């Protein structure tokens, strides 16, 4: 059981969702985050104030999956998010100690398996 975290460009978020859907990965959450990963700063000017925007908008995917789904999830995230330019994002995979489905009290493997597949 792993938690796969993908931080991607907001404009690629829809492609990532599509790729995950096609890989039959269900159950995920996303959040809007700001981050910096070495891409070029954008310069913006507001009246006389010029600023370098150090942080860019990113979308963070969090997907808790059983072990057999780790690779498909990573592939889907990478395929959906890749443009080839600096700033495409990162994928982190971390071990997951416990998972609980609140509605039923299911734990661990049952909790990260989509309802329809049980």
């Amino acid at each position: 059981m792993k938690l796969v975290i993908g931080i991607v460009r907001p404009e690629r978020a829809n492609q990532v969702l599509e790729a995950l859907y096609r890989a039959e990965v269900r159950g995920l959450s996303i959040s809007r985050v700001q981050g910096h990963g070495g891409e070029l700063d954008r310069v913006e000017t507001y009246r006389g104030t010029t600023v370098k925007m150090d942080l860019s908008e990113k979308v963070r995917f969090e997907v808790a999956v059983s072990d057999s789904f780790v690779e498909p999830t990573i592939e889907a995230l990478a395929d959906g998010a890749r443009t080839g330019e600096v700033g495409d994002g990162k994928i982190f995979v971390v071990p997951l100690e416990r998972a609980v489905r609140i509605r039923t009290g299911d734990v661990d493997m049952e909790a990260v398996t989509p309802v329809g597949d049980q």
Partner: protein
Amino acid sequence: MSGAIDSGDTAWMLISTALVLLMTVGLGLFYAGLVRSKNTLNTFMMCLSALGIAGVTWALVGYSLAFDGEGAIIGGLGNVALSGVGFEPRGDGTIPELVFMAFQGTFCIITVALVSGAVVERMRFGAWMVFAALWSVLVYAVLAHWAFGGGWLAAQGTLDFAGGVPVEMASGFSALAAALVVGARKDYGRQALLPHNAVYVLLGAGVLWFGWFGFNGGSGLSTGDPSVLAFVNTMLTPACSLITWFVLDLIRGRKVTAIGAATAIIVGCVLITPAGAYISPGWAMALGFVGALPCYAGIMWRPRTRVDETLDVLAAHGVAGFTGILAIGLVAQVGWNGVADGLFYGDAGQLGSQAVAAAVAPAYAFVVTFVLLKLLGAVMPLRASEHEEAVGMDVYAHGEEAYVTGEGAILVLHDREEKQRPMVADPG
């Protein structure tokens, strides 16, 4: 032969001019709410840029080509750069020609801004500004001359109170041409591209309706009966189109939508624009109820096509303007307008005159816009790259964001000695 200045008329026309100018800002708000948040400023700026561009082209050449002389096709160059435009009235008018020029100028401005709705979220801002300047002269000024300036359409009897020809049909059918030449947004038809702020859309529609009282109510160029009738009809027709929209929304989705309501207000205002002072209040209400139907159909149908005429200028302005122009030919009444009867009151000829305008104006606007953009596209790229479109036109074209947080913004100090000590902006 010039008439005498009437202070009441002049006062109302000064106010009307300001009201119509405000519409362009209202339109910017309306359009900005309908696009994705990353294109908010660019969309607003396309409208705002018309205030500068069309304001200047109008004063330099547009006004002269539209209103100097009675040439069949085009006016003269006698008023280029406003020469000869002063405090004396034009013809037998009762307001200074300067006020008349400014009032008509605000029409040119908003019409240019309207066209932008077809190409938002992907057209390059520089190309847009060049296009706007040329379009304001080649399309708007010419059609304004035909309908308002003594050109052949008016001469053969077409009645157009406040701009069904040069404003509504011109912008609507030019928008279709522009959408075809510039092409669809890269995500069109693949992803849901949703309005990012429905409140802007509603507020924009409200500002537009408010301004439209000057647009239609001022088009009598006086405080006389035509202005009064057009003013009141401007209240009635959108009210009725709103009701139609509510009912159609209910039938279609069992819910009345807010963005639908905002659209209905615009459609109603457009419907009554050409017919303003020519039809009775009763018929104006009927026009609102019935005229909204083809526009609703157009707005439902267009997104199913491959034509990314993004903000439905054709359905809201082209189709509604077309309907309004024809409505005059059906239900105009001499008893109300003192000028002409429509088919229902015994004069089929008026419908013929209206049909000529409804056929020729869209064709002219479409063809000239199509060719103009094709030529422009041959000398400069019309649209942003896929990457720029993905990042958003606000950052790419303007170097600004509509909803900037300030987090991670590092102040670039212009003072050379301070350059080594960048400061982090306060996110608060």
